[in-house]
């Protein structure tokens, strides 16, 4: 069982995000970290390979400045190797361009399954994974909350607006997982040491061989949204509930 896991490396989310005033792209100059959303896919892939009794987890990432820190975290969790695409021309890429790059990077190694997160934390287009599936001409199951492989058949519980569907699908296929599907492991000290020598294939667009890539959209302006005025904040001393009652009464809810 060989699994390609898309992992996005993103700015630390505890630092407020910023748009470059010139290009309007999200500023990504600091150190990047593994997107939390993708740690679930990595964990799930490691477990599936383990259960299959053999195979490799290959990480796939596109990030500026040959950034490796987030990939090292996922390698330390247990992934075998990584493919990183880094090229200044990819700054501000739209979802389809990102998907083309990732699909081309995935094709460099044999795979039975591709995993991604339903949405990235900083981009949240939520379309990249299924675009990758279409480009690779494989079936996809998005919004997966439980993933199993039985006799070469992928079995997924897929969240829907009203509950969930049991979906089955032959391999190769792509799944995008929601957070919370599994508990991502913490890298062990041994894992962290081993990650330093695991192979990372770093490519630029020319090396990837996709041909020219152009994003089909541009940001025309950025403005602050109207702020919601904040209201009254009271500290509960035992009678705080009364304030809620009065507020609801004033709105004629009760």
């Amino acid at each position, binding site marked *: 069982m060989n699994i390609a896991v898309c992992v996005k490396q993103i700015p630390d989310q505890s630092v*407020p*995000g910023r*748009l470059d005033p010139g290009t309007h792209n999200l500023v990504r100059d600091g150190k990047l970290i593994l997107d939390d959303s993708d740690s679930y896919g990595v964990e799930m892939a490691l477990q599936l390979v383990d259960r299959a009794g053999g195979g490799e987890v290959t990480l796939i990432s596109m990030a500026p400045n040959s950034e490796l820190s987030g990939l090292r975290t996922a390698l330390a969790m247990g992934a075998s190797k990584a493919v990183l695409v880094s090229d200044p021309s990819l700054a501000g890429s*739209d*979802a*389809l361009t990102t998907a083309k790059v990732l699909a081309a990077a995935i094709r460099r190694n044999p795979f039975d399954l591709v995993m991604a997160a*339903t*949405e990235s934390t900083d981009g949240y*287009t*939520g*379309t990249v994974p*299924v*675009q*990758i*599936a*279409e*480009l690779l*001409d*494989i*079936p*996809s*199951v*998005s919004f997966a909350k439980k993933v199993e492989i039985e006799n070469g058949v992928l079995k997924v519980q*897929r969240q*829907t*607006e*009203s*509950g*969930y*569907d049991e*979906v*089955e699908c032959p391999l190769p*296929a792509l799944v995008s997982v*929601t*957070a*919370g599907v599994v508990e991502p492991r913490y890298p062990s000290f041994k894992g962290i040491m081993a990650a330093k020598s695991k192979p990372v294939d770093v490519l630029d667009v020319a090396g990837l061989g996709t041909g020219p890539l152009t*994003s*089909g*959209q541009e*940001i*025309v*302006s950025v403005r*602050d*949204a109207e*702020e*919601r005025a*904040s*209201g*009254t*904040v*009271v*500290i*509960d001393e035992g009678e*705080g*509930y009364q304030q*809620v*009652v009065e*507020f*609801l009464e004033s*709105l004629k809810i009760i």
Partner: protein
Amino acid sequence: MSLSKIWVFVEPSESGVSSTSLELISAASSIAPLVEAFGYGVGPEVSQTLGDHGATKLIAATGLDGVLAGTAVASVMAKRIAGDAPDAIFFAATPEGRDAAARLSAKLDLPVCTNVVNLLQDGADLVSEHAVFGGAVIVSAKFTSAGPGIYVIRAKSFTAEPKGGAAAAFEEVNVGDIGSAGKAKIVQSHVEARSGPKLDEAPVVVSGGRGLGQQESYQMIEELAKLLNGAPGASRAIVDAGWVPYSYQVGQTGKTVKPSVYIACGISGATQHMVGMKGAKNIIAINKDADAPIFTIADLGIVGDVHKILPKLIEAIKSKG
């Protein structure tokens, strides 16, 4: 120059067609004279409602045979686009809508624009507005390449407005063979029962978060919601923890709600949660941390313990009868 034709992906609901679908039809018909709906799981019974909101035609995909709906409808759209291309294609940011938009975008090599909260016309162009950083900043974007732009639009960005059009013409299209994408099939569907008003339509929403501490405490949320004729909701933290089903989730990846009152209990106010409830007319927050971001948007904030406040609140409302 202006836009002449827009395609809209429509989804079924218990009442026929989903309210978000009607919002998108209304938005499309205020931009272009020809609005064609592409749906699945709906028949001629929704033609009148769709027509009323401005759709001229309903093209319903049939013969899905378990294939994921978004994938199937994307295939129908792709086969039909040659010679009949619209100027723009609208999808709601639902699981099916995202699947369909993503498949279609990659099939036709067209860019997709997601998390749209508003659309404005600029001559022959559409400018889309996107809420980023939890809705604090609005980014406006435009497509630069040729071909219909694909837009994935957040629920409740537009109002569904009946304007009294004739019933939409009805046409069925069998999806036929859709290649490898069609190999993923639903073998069984599970619907999680919920009682009371629908989360995204309820006038009052009471949501609970990790601050409830344990699953049992969610009962207080359900009880309060019921007393106020509202719907219970949740942050993703407790959906992920398995306390409540995904259909309860409010926010970026869940439902967008715009009730008259939203009561957030033990919810910190992460940007991804706020983007789904910031549109509420009145917001009440109960959180023991005075610095919780949710207080920055609350009309009434109570700094305190949900386990102390909620039981008293429930009692007080009950005693009012």
